[in-house]
């Protein structure tokens, strides 16, 4: 049976949900908007039709309690997938996440298991602004007891979501909105494990350690840099906790240069952890300090010109690599970069 096919990230998420729900009747999906006609940008489509409203249903606007409900169902043996249309809204649930979900297994002396997935979308573009654009993966990863996943490819959306649902620990699964439209080959039989980074591209000049959307920007940067003979290696972190330090450190030990391109604010973010891990693991090998890229130190602004500057991008990566290697700046005028208006605009 051929199980490889081309699909979008959104379809891959959907397929992972369908497969898990088919195989395990204790898996269910709930959260605001999961059952309306838009279905979380299509990622929960057909679930109501296939599995009924008891296994896919909307809720009142009550993020705090709904997270507790997910936790209560999980310790009772179900496998809830609780969905949020923006990661920002998880801040409403931080008490359940940081004071309960992360502790309950420990406090019960290991008697409780918490097979729970919190899916949340990282918003961006068309004025998503300060309250609809956060990622916060480093914040969640700070609490022992949680796992945090930031998939980039359709294959990972599929494989890591399935692995997350099967995991007996609480997993926070963060999906960048722009990735939804990205297509790629998905092998349904390829199992994925949490805790493994992936080398997306090999190179010897610099290692780019990337999360989520930054992998896409990094690939674009790599393509441009390659034309002038600079081959960068791209490591997609994939899971923040557990973190695959080995893959990251061994890549940097080879290239001896590193740009961390994290999709979040820099200060006290996951990028700091990466820089610290690399600073330790590659001590004496690094030719230059690790360069950290991330959001500008400001809330995300609405207006497009400032929003463009807020986010790190392929050009920012290129400039960072050039600086690290002491190269002159590439002329980027002829290049075309990702512009989301080609994919979506207006309300979404």
């Amino acid at each position, binding site marked *: 049976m051929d199980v490889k096919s081309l699909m979008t990230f959104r379809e891959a998420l959907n397929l992972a949900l369908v497969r898990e729900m088919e195989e395990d009747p204790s898996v269910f999906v709930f959260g605001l908007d999961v059952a309306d006609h838009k279905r979380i940008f299509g990622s929960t489509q057909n679930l109501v039709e296939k599995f009924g409203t008891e296994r896919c249903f909307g809720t*009142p606007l009550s993020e705090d309690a709904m997270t507790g409900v997910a936790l209560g169902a999980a310790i009772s043996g179900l496998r809830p997938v609780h969905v949020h249309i923006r990661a920002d809204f998880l801040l409403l649930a931080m008490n359940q996440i940081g004071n309960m979900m992360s502790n309950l297994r420990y406090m019960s002396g290991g008697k409780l298991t918490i097979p729970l997935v919190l899916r949340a979308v990282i918003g961006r573009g068309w004025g998503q*602004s300060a309250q609809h654009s956060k990622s916060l993966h480093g914040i969640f990863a700070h609490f022992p007891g949680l796992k945090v996943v930031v998939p980039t490819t359709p294959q990972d959306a599929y494989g890591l979501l399935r692995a997350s649902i099967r995991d007996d620990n609480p997993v926070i699964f963060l999906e960048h909105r722009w990735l939804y439209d990205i297509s790629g080959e998905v092998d349904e039989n390829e199992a994925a494990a949490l805790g493994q980074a992936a080398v997306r591209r090999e190179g010897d000049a610099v290692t780019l350690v990337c999360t989520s959307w930054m992998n896409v920007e990094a690939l674009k940067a790599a393509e441009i840099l390659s034309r002038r003979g600079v081959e960068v290696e791209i490591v997609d972190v994939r899971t923040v906790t557990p973190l695959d330090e080995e893959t990251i450190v061994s890549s940097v030990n080879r290239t001896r240069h590193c740009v961390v391109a994290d999709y979040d604010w820099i200060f006290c973010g996951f990028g700091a952890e990466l820089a610290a891990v690399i600073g330790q693991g590659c001590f004496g090998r690094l030719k230059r300090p690790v360069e950290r890229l991330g959001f500008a130190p400001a809330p995300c602004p609405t207006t497009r010109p400032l929003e463009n500057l807020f986010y790190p991008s392929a050009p920012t990566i290129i400039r960072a690599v050039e600086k690290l290697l002491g190269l002159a700046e590439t002329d980027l005028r002829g290049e075309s970069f990702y512009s989301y*208006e080609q994919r979506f605009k*207006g309300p979404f």
Partner: protein
Amino acid sequence: MLDKKEALSLYQKLVLVRLAEETIREEYFKDEMKTPVHLGIGAEAISVGVCHCLPSGTKTFGTYRNHALYLAVTGDTDGFFAELYGRLSGPGKGKAGSMHLCAPEHGLMATSAVVGTTIPLAVGAALANAYRKTSDVVTVFFGDGAVEEGAFWESLNFASLKRLPVLFVCEDNGLAIHAHARERRGFRSIPDAVRAFECHLGAGDGSDIVDVVQSTRAMLGQMSQEPKPGFLHFTYFRFLEHVGPREDFDAGYREKPSPQELERLDPVRRLERELLRRGVAPSALETIRAEASAKVRRGAEEAQKAPFAPPAELTTDVWT
């Protein structure tokens, strides 16, 4: 009853909001207004009517569905469009966009895109008034979905406990995005659920600005007689999709009302009929519309010529 002059002035404000939003609907497809828009077509009478009853400068708070509120409080179509087009001359320098419009100099302190989040802020502003021994009423507008958030109950409890001068205005369209009230409410009705709290309770037809004004005046009267928070519940009909410029009756989650029903639910048309009934000449209304239309058009046009914020603005205003 409102006298004719007052009714005409309300008509003027209503029409300004309606035409501004109709302009957004036309312009939006040009893809220059790069901000989500939560249009309030059908809801205008609530913000316009309530704000009409408040002394000018009164502190107000709202949600992302704030266009009517912003225009009711400020009348500033120029700033409004500048912000929607993301320009430096907008009240938020373009950083705010549609969802965060505010004008503290006019009392409109904050609006927010996270449901329920400005409710406690309004209570805090009312606390500040009480602290300063003024009884000025702070007003906060929120949708029916906000009532499901814990922050609502916590805020209502604290305000009632401290008998703060805050007016809660619930704009109930029976929908949260596409979810109907029956899919979200485990209580009989919003007024019923609020009844046990130490606050004054009122309700009205949010599609009828005359009713809104009368209910609000009655409520403000009660609040000044017996200092307690007020809670006003207004129902209204959301004409368009949750966010964006289109209708969405074809989406399947709700029926399109009959044309007669839509006439009744449209606060602008409703006030228009009332004014005509009371003998106002159609041409007088036409004049009001023409003036508003010119103002709106100028705002939208000028905005598109205005400059964007310079790069340094990216990290300005984060801290003082």
